[in-house]
């Protein structure tokens, strides 16, 4: 079987966007770098591909920025939103937790939040991309339903904490966000 490989190229300092029909995807310091998959083992390549597809299907353009100075989802998402021409951004942590944010919102708030990383599916990521794009177009999407599972605590709570700590280790103090371009390739996993 083949696996999709995600490569980030053309790293350059992130600039504020000018076009109002764009959504920014802000990824955390270790995303598709130190880490390669979410808490449940979903490949980062597939996650990003689905988010981008969701945005593209809405005929909205996307840019990806890596936030390097924080592993806090709200910071990642809000920093990206401030760089977004539409003011809309998606924040994405290595373990899979994600949120849709808007420039003018208080940082700790959000448009849509998906706190339960173990319950995320590729379909959900596609919808997240799609909704973000619709917000950027000024439409009113139905919020993506968030799932809940009581037994997620015993199974995932500690691993989530561990992943968060590792990600936090990857922080580069004071480093500015960088814009990157995703490149997907099929690779034979062995």
């Amino acid at each position, binding site marked *: 079987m083949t696996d999709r490989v995600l490569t980030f190229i053309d790293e350059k300092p992130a600039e504020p966007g000018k076009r109002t029909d764009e959504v920014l995807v802000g990824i955390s310091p270790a995303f598709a770098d130190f880490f390669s998959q979410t808490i449940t083992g979903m490949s980062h390549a597939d996650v990003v591909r689905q988010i981008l*597809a969701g945005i*593209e299907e809405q005929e909205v353009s996307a840019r990806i920025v890596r936030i390097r100075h924080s592993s806090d989802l709200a910071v990642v998402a809000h920093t990206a939103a401030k760089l977004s021409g539409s003011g809309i951004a998606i924040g994405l942590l290595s373990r899979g937790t994600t949120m849709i944010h808007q420039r*003018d919102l208080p940082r700790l708030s959000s448009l849509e939040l998906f706190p339960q990383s173990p319950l995320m599916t590729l379909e959900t990521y596609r919808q997240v991309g799609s909704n973000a794009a619709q917000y950027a177009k000024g439409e009113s999407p139905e919020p993506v339903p968030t799932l809940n599972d009581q037994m997620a605590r015993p199974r995932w709570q500690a691993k989530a904490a561990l992943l968060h700590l590792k990600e936090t280790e990857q922080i580069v103090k004071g480093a500015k966000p960088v814009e990157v371009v995703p490149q997907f390739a099929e690779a034979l996993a062995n």
Partner: protein
Amino acid sequence: MPQTVVGVDIGNSTTEASAATIGSDGSVQFLGAALAPTTGVKGTPRNVDGVADVVERALRTAGVAVGDLDVVLLNEATPVISGMAMETITETIITESTMIGHDPRTPGGRGLGVGTTVGFGALAETPAAEPVIVVVPRGVDFEVAAGEINAATRRGVAVAAAILGNDDAVLVVNRLDGAIPVIDEVSRIDAVPLGMLAAVEVAGPGQSIRTLSNAYGLATIFELDAAATRVVSPVARALTGNRSAVVVRTPAGDVADRTIPAGSLELKGENRRATVDVSRGAVEIMAAVERVSPLADVSGEAGTNTGGMIANVRQSMADLSEHAVADVHIKDLLAVDTFVPQEVRGGVAGEVALENAVALAAMVRTRDSGMQAVAAAVADRLRAGGAEDVEVIVGGVEAEMAVLGALTTPGTDKPLVVLDLGGGSTDAALIEIDGSIDAVHLAGAGDLVTKLIDAELGLDNLELAEDIKRCPLGKAESFFHVRLENGTVQFFEKPLPATAFARVVTLDGHSMNPIPGRHSMERIRTVRRTAKERIFVVNALRSLRTVAPGGDLRQIGFVVLLGGCALDFEIPQLIADALAPYGIVCGTGNIRGTEGPRNAVASGLVASYAGRSAGVLVGGSG
């Protein structure tokens, strides 16, 4: 010697009081008013707490000691309650999956593609012959889909269009060598017939399809004769206004607009009877109601939806009034045409059609209102409370008292009609030059408006519908400004709640409630206003015709609005506009020039009592 009296109006939600002194000549001097939430169900002894409370406060504002209280006047509640029901009377059925018209948000490509439908799996083997439309099931990745289509075209296969299960149209088109129209989100894609001639049309954003929504366009594509064209014309109609659509030509394929046999209504008048089929719609039902009026009772054809509908209304009203179902007699009926979004039978993509429906409101007279019992209880309470020799009288029927009260509105004169459009019923009363009063109670008011809004917007959330009824709309275009329904913009210092962002919201002054769903602000506004027109305006006219001398509205000089609707932000306007042609002055009441639309009944009670006591004195002296 002058008397101290307090008029008290016990309403469903609030209890109002007006304190006054009445001179021996019958002259009235109002001293103070008070208002409090009604305690207990209207007409039950538990009202006493609320009554005692308002009486005391009215006296306090009047500066009169409780001991000096002579008379308390209670309203005779109008013994009516109402119920509602709704029934769909049409349905759209697609046979053989002839048509896909679900209007996905993001179809791909542009233009018209005609060809034979072929399954995705078979595309690789499809010979380079006549054009095909590829049908791609869910689960096929967009890159794979695009790859296969490109491969086929390179082999010379003319792929004219594609139909997708996933929401992938744009993604696929973006990866094609040449653009073709693509429609997606077809949930039951497996139901799309293969090997059939089909057409896919996609229009640009904000535009709608031209060919498939035109009967002759279909005739041209599928080479149909006149007869066949007649058959497919419903398809064309069904697709009008869509941005994208698919039509498949199958042997017996058809789209039917079918009328559901809803059953008939049995209208028993005092002296005439009539039977009317509900599926004929509101106009005919109301015509029949007019014909047999005054109405004695209504029943529905047993074993039909209508039968069930009327039975439910009866039952609900029996429970409410604690009557036996047998004792429940429907004295008025309001039928309203409405439409409810419903999934099309036989649709392959969850197509939704607006089906016609009829909403009914029924009004029932209950036995007595129980006010006498309340009066006795109030007397005991007040006497215990220090008003030793107070008398408590049920002073007059609400509607009549309301008229007398309304007459204290500056600028009014007889003949005058009071319109009280509440939650359950519409009450009207006319006072003629000679002072004679005629009252009427009709079915249908605020609650039915809420139900219509709920149904027509497919909300299934009465709380939200209620909100939409009461409040103006706006759209939160950014976190700092809202575009109001009248086009103006309102700015905010603090960012709006995230839940409101980019959504149509109701603005009740302090809070903002987002309205879920894809409805535009314009659409919601139209539904709200037409709902109000279909109930309030219709009932205003109905009631005026009933009370107007000879049914001639021009005989009425003034209409004063009271009750919940009088405080609504648009209903008074809607009604005034409707009455203007008859030269009627219509507006919200301002009782005694100070109380606004409140306190009419309480003030009326005092006035009528004054009139009567004056009469008594005259009689005594003669």
